[in-house]
C-alpha cells in the first residue's frame, strides 16, 4: 500500500534521483563530520606536550640533584660577594640560562628562624641572629631557581621549550608537597634550621634583603 502510494507520487526515475541525492548528502555529512572537529584551546594546549611526563622527569631530576648539593655555596659568602663583588659571584657560583642578567645559585646555610610569614621563614644566619637575611620560600613557588641553579638540565636537550618549562612547575610541586609540609607543621620562632636551596638574583638590580631561597632540603632543631 505504502509502496503503491509512493509510486503514485514519484516515478522510478524520480526515485533514483532522490536516492542519489540522499546518498550524496550522506557522503557530504560523513566527510564533514570527519574533517571538522571542535576542541577547546585549553585541551589543545595540553595535547601539545602529551608525550612528555614532567612529573616523572622532575622525580629523576630530584634524585640527581641530591648528588649536586655538595656544590652549594655558603649563604654568608654569597651574600658577601653580592654586596661587594657581583662579577665574582656570577662567575664563580652563578648559572645562567641563555643570555640573561639573572643568574641562579645553589646555596646552603644554617641560622635561627626570626619570623614566620605567609610565604617565608625569615632566617638570620648564625652567628649573629639580628636581622633576617634569608627568606626561605614556603609559598608562591613559581620560578626556575632550582632547575637553573642545579645546572643539570640543558634547554637544548628538549625539542620544545614548553617541555623545558613544565619541569620547573613539577619541581616546585615536589617542594610544596613533599619538602615543606612536614617542616611547616612543627616550625616555630627560635628554631635552628639547616637548609640547602636555590636562588635567582639579577646582577643589575639585586633584591637580596633578604635573599629569597627556594628550599631543596630543610632540617629543623628546636630551641
Amino acid at each position, binding site marked *: 500500500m505504502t509502496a503503491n502510494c509512493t509510486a503514485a507520487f514519484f516515478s522510478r526515475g524520480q526515485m533514483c534521483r532522490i536516492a542519489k541525492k540522499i546518498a550524496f548528502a550522506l557522503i557530504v555529512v560523513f566527510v564533514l563530520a570527519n574533517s571538522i572537529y571542535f576542541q577547546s584551546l585549553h585541551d589543545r594546549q595540553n595535547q*601539545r606536550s602529551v608525550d612528555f611526563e614532567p612529573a616523572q622527569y622532575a622525580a629523576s631530576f630530584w634524585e640527581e640533584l641530591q648528588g649536586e648539593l655538595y656544590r652549594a655555596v655558603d649563604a654568608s659568602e654569597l651574600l658577601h660577594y653580592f654586596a661587594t663583588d657581583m662579577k665574582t659571584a656570577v662567575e664563580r657560583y652563578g648559572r645562567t640560562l*641563555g643570555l640573561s642578567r*639573572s643568574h641562579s645559585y645553589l646555596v646552603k646555610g644554617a641560622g635561627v628562624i626570626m619570623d614566620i610569614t605567609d610565604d617565608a621563614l625569615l632566617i638570620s644566619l648564625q652567628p649573629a641572629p639580628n636581622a633576617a637575611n634569608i627568606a626561605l620560600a614556603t609559598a608562591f613557588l613559581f620560578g626556575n631557581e632550582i632547575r637553573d641553579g642545579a645546572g643539570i638540565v640543558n634547554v637544548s*636537550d628538549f*625539542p620544545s*621549550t614548553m617541555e623545558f618549562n613544565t619541569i620547573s612547575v613539577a619541581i616546585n610541586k615536589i617542594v610544596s608537597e613533599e619538602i615543606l609540609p612536614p617542616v611547616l607543621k612543627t616550625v616555630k620562632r627560635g628554631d635552628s634550621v639547616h637548609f640547602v636551596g636555590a636562588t635567582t638574583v639579577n646582577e643589575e638590580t639585586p633584591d637580596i634583603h633578604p635573599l629569597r631561597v627556594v628550599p631543596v632540603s630543610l632540617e629543623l632543631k628546636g630551641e
Partner: protein
Amino acid sequence: MQKSVLAFVYVMAAFFVGCVNTKSSDPGKIAVVISTMNNPWFIVLGDAAKQRTEELGYEAIIYDSQNNNAKEADHFENIIAARYKAILFNPTDADGSIVNVERAKKAGIPTFCMDRELNSKDAAVTQILSDNYSGCVALGQYFVKKLGKKGTFAELLGLVGDNNTWNRSRGFHSVVDNYPDLVMVAQQSADFDRNRAMEVMDSILQAHPAINAVFCGNDAMAMGAYQAIVAAGKEKQIMVFGFDGAKDVIDAIRDGKIVATGMQFPTMMAHKAAEYADEFLKGKRDFERKIPIAVELVTQENIDKYTAYGKIE
C-alpha cells in the same frame, strides 16, 4: 701577430684573475625570513637582522611570510634556488616550518631561528628565543598584585600554532591559577593582530562587561584591546597587560594607559642571529641549539629604564 696574441692572453688572464678576486671578496647573500611584517615588533626584528648582516659584509634580503606557512615554503624554495649562504629565520609555525628548514639544511644552507621556536632539536643551527614562560611568570605575579588577588579577567591568545602563544599563556597561568578568586571568564585567540584583538575584545566586553583586566599575549593585541575598551568607555575599569615591549605600549605605560608588558629584545636577538651566521660561515660549529633570552617586566614604576624594544643603556 705574436704581440697581439700575447696581448689577448694578458687581457684574458687579467679578466679571469679579476673574476676570481671578485668572487672571493663577495661573502654572498643572507636571507632574513620574517613571519609577518604587518606588526611593528617584527619589523624591528627583520630590519635589525638585515642591518647587522650588512654590517658584517653580506647582502641581506628580507622575505615576509605574511603568517602563511605556504608562502614561507615558497620563500625557502627561492632561497635554496638562489643559493643563499644562510637564513635568519622567524618561523610561522613551530611544527609546520620544520620541513622548510630541513629542506634548506639538505641543500647546505644553515638556518638560525629568531624569537619563534621550531619544535626540533637539530633542524636549525641554533634558536635564539625569548624566555617567554619566565617573562609571563613575572608578569603573572605583577598581575595578581595589581588586581589584589581577586577579580575577573579575559585572555587574548596569539596564533594557536605558535609555541610563544602557549609559553606565555602557561607562564601566566602557572601563577594566576593559584588564586581561586581570580576568575578567567574568556580566553580567545586574536592571532597576535591588533585589529582582530579589537574585534575579539569588543565581543568579550558585550558578554562580560564587568571584567577587571585583560592579559594579552602580545603588545599589538594589547593596543587593539585597549582601543575596544576605550570605545566602550571602560578604560578606568579594565587593566590591560601586554607582552613585547613595542613602542605603542611603552608610550602607553608611560601615559598610564597600559599597566605592564614583558620586554623582549628583538634587536639583540636579530644581531646575535646575524653574528652566529657569520661565525658559522667562518667555520664555527659548536653552537648551543637553543639560547633563551631573558624577558624583563616593564611597569609604570620602572618605565624610565626602558625604551621601545629595549633598555636605556
